Structures are given as structure tokens and as C-alpha cells.
């Protein structure tokens, strides 16, 4: 059981770092937002693993809150992407690296 739990936490860590790599490497804002989703999902997986290891429901409750937060975050993020497209005609995050006051 404990070896399984370690492997499950390891999977959550791998997924989290894949998402982090995506955020750091990609410059396309849509891909960056998707990578953030992967990271949130990995955090939720870690919560579920913990809840399963202790047999408590708290981990599942936390995943529900993560889902709500991800929904709010994605809606605002996608609206920002649409604004970026309207203003700069580009989905490159580097196109907004200058503040124009």
C-alpha cells in the first residue's frame, strides 16, 4: 500500500513538472493556460491520493474546490487571451512584454 502511495504521488509530481515545463517553455498563451490546467490537475491528484491513503473524504472535497477554481481561472484567462488577440493579433506571450502606460 505504501509503495503504491509513493508511486501515485510520484505520478502527481511528474504531471506537475510536465505542466510547469509547458508553462516555462511554450510561448503560446493557449498552451501556457493548458499547462496550468495540467498542474492544477496534478495537485488534485495528490489530494485524492492523500484522501485515499487515509480513507477520508477531505481530499475529494479539495478536488471539488480545485475544479471550481480552475473553472473561474480558465474563464478569465480565456477572456484575456481573446483581448490579447484583438489588440495584438498574436497568441505569443512575448508580444505583451512592454507596458505602454
Amino acid at each position: 500500500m505504501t509503495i503504491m502511495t509513493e508511486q501515485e504521488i510520484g505520478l502527481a509530481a511528474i504531471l506537475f513538472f510536465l505542466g510547469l515545463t509547458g508553462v516555462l517553455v511554450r510561448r503560446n498563451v493557449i498552451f501556457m493556460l493548458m499547462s496550468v490546467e495540467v498542474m492544477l490537475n496534478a495537485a488534485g491528484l495528490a489530494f485524492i491520493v492523500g484522501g485515499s491513503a487515509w480513507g477520508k473524504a477531505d481530499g475529494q472535497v479539495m478536488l471539488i474546490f480545485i475544479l471550481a477554481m480552475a473553472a473561474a481561472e480558465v474563464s478569465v484567462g480565456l477572456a484575456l487571451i481573446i483581448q490579447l488577440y484583438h489588440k495584438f493579433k498574436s497568441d505569443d506571450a512575448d508580444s505583451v512584454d512592454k507596458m505602454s502606460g
Partner: protein
Amino acid sequence: MNILFYISAVIAIVATLRMITGKNAVHALLYLIVSLLAVSVIFFLLGAPFVAALEVIIYAGAIMVLFVFVIMMLNVSGDGIKKEKALLTPGIWVGPSIITTVLLLEMVYMLVRQPSPFPGQPIASIVRTEVTPAVVGALLFTKYILVVELSAFLLAAGIIGAYHLGQKEKVSHHRYLKKEGGPV
């Protein structure tokens, strides 16, 4: 349970890798959905069927559809028809289809291998001890009721923020109200 977990874990990692390294946003999204489905299977194996269903419905269903809508809205390039044709070639969808089929076979195997004697009972020895939705709901509306209300605030703020950010700049036709260098 072990081998099922390993298969789903490999599928999740491979799909996430393909998502990160993908060029086309829609194809990457397809792989992201597969990754979410694989994680959902792992949730089911861990004895959390309620959040496994939520993951499929909300994450892979609603949020990813939002992504698809935005990607399609932003497809401003003129070669949309060419891309549409490219979507229909088998080379594009065969990858996600194969690994999703593996996930489907896993689910069927779990359902068939040991039919539970009572509906709603956990399938013994495949799924870890199950935490039922009733327990989750009871905890959600007693101990965590404050956080539920806070997440309602958060969602309301998300709706208003998305509406505010998503609207286009207003075009005013009166010459005195026109902004300097603004849209004409």
C-alpha cells in the same frame, strides 16, 4: 489494481508530453483531454468515483469545450478550410483514439471482471476502499461550508471578470467622443 494504475499513469504522462510538444492547439487539446481521462481512471482506482465523474464532466467536458470555443474563435487565419481538411486525415486523430481505446478497455475490464453483488458497492480488490459521494457531500456542507460559499464568490467574480474582459472596445460614432487613435 497495480497494472491498471501503471497503464493509466503511462497514458497520462504520454498524453501530457504530446500536449506540451504539440504544434496545433486543437490536437494538443485532444491530448490534454485524454490525459484528464486517464487521471479520472486513476481517481476511480483510488476509490473516489464521485470526483472521477466530476473530472470527466467538468474538466474534460465543460472546461475543455470552453478551450475549443476560444481556439475556434481565434482561428483568424485564412487557411481555415485547409486546416479543416487536415483534421479529417487519419494521422491526426489516430493517436488519441488508440490511447483512449486503451482507457476504455481498462474501464470495461474493471466493470466486467468482478461484478459487485450489490449496486453501489465497491468492486473489491480492484478499487481501493471507496469513499462514497454521500460522505463527500456531508463533509462539504458541514465542515467546509464556508469554503463552498467562498468558491461561490470566486465563481461570481470569474463570471463578471470574463464578461468585462471579453467585451469588445466600444466604438463611438460621435466625433467629440472619439478617442485619440482609437477605433474609428
